């Protein structure tokens, strides 16, 4: 009986799109954008803090993805590869434009509005406190949280996107946790209350 060894990327439909891009298929780039554009823009927005700059970053990233498609070997998931490009382009853009570290004020306000009446007062207060604490984190720490909790990447994949060792990702998570605990304690909230 033959046993085929499949890599996790073998089942990723986006990998086939990247391969088509490498052979010059423009439609493949459109499909890849349709499938992942929202996630990529969200990540760019979190890193740059400006919608205009995030769109610019995304456009640069699509161009870079097109040009780099023939070097993609399918070892990582296509979304990991794309997020890595966006991460790199966003850092370049913030450096080039000398943008201040992005703030999440707008996002926080939006989240408050979207919490809805069903959310209890205490839960709302806790969420506000958490979002305030998240906004105080550095871009490096916040990007790790974004990658793990919004983009759904493993720690190894987050390390690949940020181009750093997995140990660095773990230490950033640990720092973020300590910071968030302190912030909650400052608001008179305890982690035990959340269980």
């Amino acid at each position: 009986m033959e046993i085929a060894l499949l890599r996790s990327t073998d089942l990723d439909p986006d990998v086939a799109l990247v391969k088509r891009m490498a052979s010059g298929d423009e439609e493949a780039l459109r499909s890849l954008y349709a499938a992942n554009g929202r996630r990529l823009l969200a990540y760019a927005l979190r890193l740059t803090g400006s919608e205009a700059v995030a769109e610019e970053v995304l456009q640069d990233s699509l161009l870079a993805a097109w040009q780099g498609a023939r070097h993609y070997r399918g070892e990582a998931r296509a979304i990991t590869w794309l997020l890595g490009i966006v991460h790199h382009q966003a850092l370049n853009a913030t450096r080039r434009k000398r943008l201040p570290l992005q703030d999440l004020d707008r996002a926080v306000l939006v989240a408050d509005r979207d919490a809805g009446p069903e959310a209890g007062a205490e839960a709302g207060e806790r969420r506000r406190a958490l979002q305030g604490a998240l906004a105080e984190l550095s871009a490096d720490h916040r990007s790790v949280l974004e990658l793990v909790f919004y983009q759904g990447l493993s720690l190894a994949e987050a390390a690949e996107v940020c181009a750093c060792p997995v140990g660095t990702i773990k230490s950033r998570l640990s720092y973020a946790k300590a910071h968030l605990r302190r912030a909650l304690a400052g608001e008179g909230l305890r982690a035990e209350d959340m269980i």
Partner: protein
Amino acid sequence: MSCKFAELLPQYAAGTLDEASSRAVAGHLDSCLECREELALWRQVGAAIRAAHAADPMPSPALVGRALTRVRRARPSLAARAWALLVAQVPLVRREIWPASALVMAIGTLVAALLGDQRGWTVVQALAPIVAAAGLLGAGPRVVAVHRHGKRGERGLPPMVGARAGERPRRGPEYSRAGPGRSPASLRPGLAQPSPALRAGGGPRPCRGVVGRPAGAPHSHEGVSRRPARSHLALAYPSPDLFPPRGSRRTGCSSLWGSRHGG
């Protein structure tokens, strides 16, 4: 927190942990209050982050169009790509064949231009290696003897016995007997001739030879590169003599491999 499961909790909260690890964490949580508290914190963090994304703007469909416009603008024209490919093949193709190669490439590029950008580029990509291969075949038996005393054999130094591309060099008797004063070129018609200056000078300085051989005594230049000219494909077939077993010592043979054995 010193619990070994602590570093798995963010991924467990995000739902991205693999099945086996998830089961292990779930089993552990029953008995560890500290981990339960931490998991609750990570779940709150995840919820806060996802809530903040609820009002993210949708990416504009025009954005990918703009990116593709930049892709097309950044892409070099078919002619520029064909020219770059032609230039890249130049080191492979013998100088005498350049005009013929250039003509074939020009005709190919013209045909490719008529076919359109994408299909045309495929034609050019297929054509260029064929032109290079034809150039190599046209080179025929070529002799390149790189000697430390001078330049390539074809430019004035006594050449070594030649070999076609891909053919193993022969160690014929006429070659092994060839001394400094007797160029193998005289033994094989069609081989490059030594320069007049070299002929007048009686050939290159003799090699000092291998240990055990009298200095200056003629010996074969086994191991000297024989390859088709301008080809990066077929390098020398070094004689086993050039890489003697550990312990044996060579002195002074100043051939292409001179630096390898003390030359």
